[in-house]
């Protein structure tokens, strides 16, 4: 796939999106609900018409090509397995439509069923499957014809968390093994960061950043992009009269003494989530979320001084929100509230 740009007219759901997905890559479309992720996916699939711009596969303009002939596979959010067909017939359906010989279809379906471990379920109807099994069957159906491009709309969001992790890993394995170019939509930043080769961060129908997970996480292109990728959300400190906003992720803080501390605050809440301890620190006109190291002596109500780890501060233009390459020297800053 080679260059993808979709835009909509007057009432824009997705505006002026330009990106290229390299062959074999797994790309996540990340953004909050209603930001145009799914719209983008449907436009790529051809299920929605774009009002401007073009979609290209391998350089070929697809705008006029109907969905049926685009050679894409898709896993829908609600799986959308045909309820009146068995799992076997569901997986075989794309191949039947290509008029494959029966024996070839049999071989392909069996191969996929084994890979996705649904071999025993082939004779069942979808309503007799659990959510995870339905999801596997839907993935098998989408992969059956070895599509040029695989699209997935929140494929794991309806599964419980342990199953979600398991299926994610399995899917990543399959995707890499077959080298399937994949575009998937998610609102789960962790899913996007852990699974994908590249992330397209979207908000309000616009693309904010398109980069590797490392870059998206460590060098967010704007304050908005930083908010979307990463959990807990990045802490922002704004100072009156200053052209910058300072950002720091929860894990990028150190405890500091009185004279080297950037911020001083009082611990309001201590959340222990297994290996981590998350502090909510009430600082002047800000509530900071900070991961505490094991050796920090913490107690609710205690006063604490904090400093950002060297090289981990993010600077954003306080007016436009865009990333600034440098800011003032941290050690000389004393933040006392906006």
């Amino acid at each position, binding site marked *: 796939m080679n260059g993808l740009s979709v835009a909509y007219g007057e009432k824009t759901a997705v505006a002026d999106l330009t990106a290229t997905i390299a062959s074999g890559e797994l790309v996540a479309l990340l953004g909050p609900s209603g930001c145009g992720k799914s719209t983008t996916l449907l436009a790529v699939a051809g299920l929605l018409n774009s009002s401007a711009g073009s979609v290209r596969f391998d350089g070929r303009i697809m705008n006029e090509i109907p*969905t*049926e002939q685009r050679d894409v*596979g898709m896993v*829908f959010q609600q799986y*959308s397995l*045909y309820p009146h067909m068995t799992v076997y017939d569901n997986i075989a359906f794309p191949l039947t439509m290509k008029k494959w010989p029966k024996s070839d279809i049999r071989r392909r379906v069996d191969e996929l069923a084994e890979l996705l471990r649904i071999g025993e379920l082939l004779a069942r109807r979808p309503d007799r499957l659990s959510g995870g099994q339905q999801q596997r069957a839907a993935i098998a159906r*989408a992969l059956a014809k070895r599509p040029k491009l695989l699209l997935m709309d929140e494929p794991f969001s309806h599964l419980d968390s342990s199953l979600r992790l398991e299926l994610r890993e399995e899917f990543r394995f399959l995707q890499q093994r077959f080298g399937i170019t994949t575009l998937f939509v998610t609102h789960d930043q962790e899913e996007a960061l852990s699974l994908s080769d590249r992330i397209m961060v979207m908000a309000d129908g616009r693309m904010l950043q398109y980069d590797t997970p490392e870059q998206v996480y460590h060098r967010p292109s704007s304050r908005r992009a930083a908010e979307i990728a990463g959990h807990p959300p990045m802490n922002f400190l704004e100072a009156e009269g200053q052209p910058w906003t300072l950002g720091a992720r929860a894990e990028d803080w150190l405890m500091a003494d009185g004279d080297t501390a950037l911020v001083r605050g009082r611990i309001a809440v201590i959340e222990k989530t297994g290996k981590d301890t998350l502090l909510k620190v009430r600082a002047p006109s800000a509530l900071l979320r900070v991961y505490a190291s094991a050796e920090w002596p913490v107690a609710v109500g205690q006063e604490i001084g904090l400093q950002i780890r060297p090289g981990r501060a993010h600077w954003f233009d306080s007016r436009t929100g865009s990333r600034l390459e440098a800011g003032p020297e941290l050690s000389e800053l004393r933040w006392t509230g906006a």
Partner: protein
Amino acid sequence: MNDKKSWRGTHQAWPYLMPAMMIVAVFGLYPVIQAFDLSLHVRYDYYRNLVFERGWDNFSFVFQDPEFRLALRNTLLLIVSVVPASMVASLAIAYFLHTRRLLSRWLQPAFFLPLVASVLAAALAWRWLFHTEYGLANATFAGLGLPAVGWLTSPEWAMPSLVLFSVWHSLGYNVLLFLVGLQAIPPQYDRAARIDGASRWPRFRRITLPMLRRVLYYVSIVSVVHAFMTFDEVFALFGGERAGPMDRALTVVYYVFRKFYSESEYGIASAAAYAGFLLVFALTLVQLKMSDRRGG
């Protein structure tokens, strides 16, 4: 709901069921039994409710009556022609309306007209369409270079005209049902099928049609029953004097009507009604079995 079946539970249900049961008994069961009894009356005084002789004579008369046989043949013909024709046509129209939303907003009223127009009013319009000299049907035929046809006046065209009118008249209701059925199918399946490379016809054939199965089944049952009941269409289309030229559009219900009201042969009318009822009952049972086998 969670209880097992028990006599105690069943008895407790009686008071709640009684009002509905009474209505069914008085207006449903009683007339059915009464009519059956009437069909067995051989010699009787209807007005004084005196019966001198009971027997199966009415049934044997009915089955030997060439008029009833004609009526039966015509009714069967209506069922096997009107039901499939109307179902195919109304499904096609409903699918068209369903897939072309914009156009359908303007066309929808036209297709529902048969539903809201009374049979009498509709038949009046069709009598004009079918008029031998001035009708649109013959004008079209003339335009195509075909000879004029006595739609409502020649015996051999009586049934074709009735079939045409009946199909048209059943469209509105069937289109409505199919449209509701089509709109109840979540659009995601059509999307999935497009992704899977299915073009329009395979999508209709392999996805839409199977998901409409229940509606298809319902419409077919209702249509069969309705075709069997054909009476008012005949009455209105041919003017109520006779069942078409030379009685050629005679139906079972028309036969019953005539025996009862014109000829005052109450026993024969009841016997004919029962014979017809058994026929439809058997047909419906066959339909039920067929849909069961397909996992309805």
